[in-house]
């Protein structure tokens, strides 16, 4: 294959896009529509996921210990801890995989938080001693909410542990939401891809039949398979490229608009729901869209060309 032939075929590919502008337009519209849906869908899912993830980060397990001041429960000698002894457990808890952060809360810190909540700023009046003496605890944050129950079991296996506070419901709801999002998005993306490959395949097939004379001539004039097919592949990839850029631009401006709208109108909401910036969304969306768009164009045209353009 000579270079001049290759450059001629590439030019033919571009020329074909203009010669068959209606088919090209239809193909671009098909890919654009699919990638637009895909992009919108991804933006929504990504935000959901980030919100769920934020919520997961807030899921914590609190561990309390047996101590000598606690008169409500029976303790054996070996179960009793002092604050210093309890602190020594920290490295063991931190070593576990599902644990992302461990905070030790001293009895004084616990009282400070509690009292503020119940008595306001002047809480100290009337209390000489800390009524929560011995109520030191660990606040444990999880990197993976699925592992919560395993962690709780493990914590109870430590003899000095008296009580573990956790919410089963939050953990299962969040991990369920996570799974649901993953399945639904995979399903929808698969359908979108299949639909667009099918559409581009038939659009290119229509384009090929519209050019049946030219293709028949190529055959009679002794064109090789490569010569006949290559312009269609160029055409498919270029159409894929254009069909990728349009929805990306659309989603970019739409997303920015939606984001500022939500932040303006629902200030409350956006305070504790953490929305992704357009850059964060596009970091993934741009390469994937280009890959998919050009891939669809390439696959659609090559499959059509192989089927219809055997010279």
């Amino acid at each position, binding site marked *: 294959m000579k270079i001049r032939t290759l450059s001629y075929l590439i030019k033919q590919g571009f020329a074909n896009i203009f010669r068959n502008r209606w088919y090209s337009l239809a193909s671009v519209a098909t890919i654009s529509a699919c990638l637009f849906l895909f992009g919108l869908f991804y933006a929504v899912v990504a935000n959901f996921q980030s919100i769920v993830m934020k919520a997961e980060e807030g899921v914590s397990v609190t561990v309390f210990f047996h101590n000598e001041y606690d008169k409500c429960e029976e303790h054996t000698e070996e179960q009793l801890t002092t604050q210093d002894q309890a602190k020594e457990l920290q490295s063991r808890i931190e070593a576990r995989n599902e644990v992302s952060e461990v905070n030790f809360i001293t009895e004084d810190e616990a009282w400070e938080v509690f009292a503020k909540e119940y008595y306001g700023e002047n809480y100290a009046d009337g209390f000489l001693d800390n009524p929560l003496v011995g109520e030191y605890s660990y606040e444990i944050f999880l990197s993976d909410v699925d592992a919560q129950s395993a962690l709780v079991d493990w914590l109870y296996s430590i003899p000095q542990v008296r009580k573990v506070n956790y919410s089963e419901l939050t953990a299962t709801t969040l991990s369920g939401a996570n799974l649901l999002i993953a399945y639904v998005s995979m399903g929808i993306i698969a359908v979108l891809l299949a639909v667009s490959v099918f559409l581009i395949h038939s659009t290119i097939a229509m384009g090929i039949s519209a050019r049946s004379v030219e293709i028949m*001539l190529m055959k009679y004039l002794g064109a090789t398979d490569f010569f006949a097919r290559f312009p269609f592949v160029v055409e498919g990839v270029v159409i894929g490229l254009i069909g990728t850029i349009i929805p990306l631009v659309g989603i970019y401006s739409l997303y920015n608009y939606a984001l500022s709208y939500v932040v303006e109108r629902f200030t409350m909401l956006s305070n504790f729901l953490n929305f992704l910036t357009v850059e964060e969304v596009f970091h993934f969306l741009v390469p994937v869209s280009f890959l998919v768009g050009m891939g669809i164009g390439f696959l659609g045209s090559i499959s059509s060309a192989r089927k219809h353009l055997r010279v």
Partner: protein
Amino acid sequence: MTKREQRRLEKRQQIIEEKGIICLDNVTAQYPGTDTTALDQVSLRINKGEFVFIVGNSGSGKSTLIKLLLKEITPVEGDIYVGGYELNRLSHRKISFFRRTIGVVFQEFRLLKERTVYDNVAFAQRIIETPVYEIKRNVPEILAMVGLPGKYKASAKDLAGGEQQRVAIARALVNKPSILLADEPTGNLDPQNTREIMKLLEEINELGTTVVVVTHNNQIVDEMRKRVIQLNFGSISSDEEGGYYTYED
């Protein structure tokens, strides 16, 4: 040219000398899904440089013969040699190179209507990867030869029928094929243009190209006094040098 190509060329020359430039040996053709035989055990030889008319009623197998010669369809039985190529043994990859040695012209011209006359002819040269500077020289030359000098900027769809067929002939000839096949090239033309196109084909033949013309035009056939092969229900019913179109009803 490599040694190997040289040997192949020599082998083709040898086949042409032995069997003629076109040779059918007991060829039977049938379209898939039908049980009528379009051609029934046809044998025929055409020598290099001949001008041959193929005549016969509608459905007698004329177009089928042309398709066989182009390896557009394959026979169910029999051997075909065209231009020294043994078609039954031609691999798919080599078909395109085989077809470059044959020019084809059709009744309905089959031009790229939106493109210029020049582009239509240059298209054939592009396919065989001719350098642009050679295309620029060859195309005007061949257009002058078919009687269309200075027309090459016109869009193909703006030409008259006779002119369009000239462009199609120029396109078929520009790659210098050794054989020109024409399936009813004057079927869409008036008597005046028919006569001129046939004259052009005769000139092309006189320059050395083997020409095979399928036609219904009895008057022209009778006038031109060439070899006439008549097909009847898929068989050759007559084959005469300087023959006439015989009528069968």
